[in-house]
């Protein structure tokens, strides 16, 4: 589970959000769909900036201080400011915002479960040994 896992997770979440958009507009209405979509984009941006911050600070090589300061200055006010703005929009139900924000976490959990199950399937089982001996 390397850094590619995160990139694939971000891509998967973006695709799921795009697929959700027309269905949400049809079944839920405009504002709930926009709220969930905005929450999802908020979560995506949050993970992108956390990822950039961790990759640039927590590493064995030397840290580029200006890059770290730039990411931190950009991430914290902008993302929390945008989150505050989203929660203040009267038409956006906070529950839909939360649902959209949680989509990324759901995708991470499901991908991790899938990867664990695939790895478990690759390992030789005790029954395989018995079969090969027989």
């Amino acid at each position, binding site marked *: 589970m390397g850094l590619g896992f995160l990139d694939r997770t971000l891509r998967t979440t973006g695709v799921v959000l795009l697929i959700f958009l027309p269905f949400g507009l049809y079944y839920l209405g405009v504002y709930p769909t926009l709220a969930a979509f905005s929450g999802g984009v908020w979560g995506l941006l949050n993970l992108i900036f*956390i990822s950039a911050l961790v990759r640039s600070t927590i*590493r064995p090589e030397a840290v580029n201080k200006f890059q770290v300061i730039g990411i931190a200055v950009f991430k914290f006010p902008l993302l929390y400011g945008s989150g505050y703005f989203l929660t203040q929009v009267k038409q956006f139900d906070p529950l839909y915002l939360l649902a959209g924000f949680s989509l990324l976490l759901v995708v991470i959990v499901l991908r991790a479960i899938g990867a664990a199950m695939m790895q478990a399937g690759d390992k030789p089982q005790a029954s395989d040994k018995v079969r090969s001996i027989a």
Partner: protein
Amino acid sequence: MDYQSMLGLSAPIAVGLAAIGSGLGIGRAVGSAMEAMGRQPEAAGKIQTAMIIGAAFIEALTIYVFIVFIMANGHFGG
């Protein structure tokens, strides 16, 4: 102290406690990640990935509390 006052007093305390918990959690995670990376620099990619996912989950909890606080905010003050 009536119900509304108790609610108005306890909600900011709950948000503060969530922020303190998240801060402690991220601090521990970063400390452990740095230690692990110092021991095994070749595993830096895997450690960073686990660190990022952990940080995302920890931060999500704080954001949940923040949104719940905003949802409850309209009910304060009777």
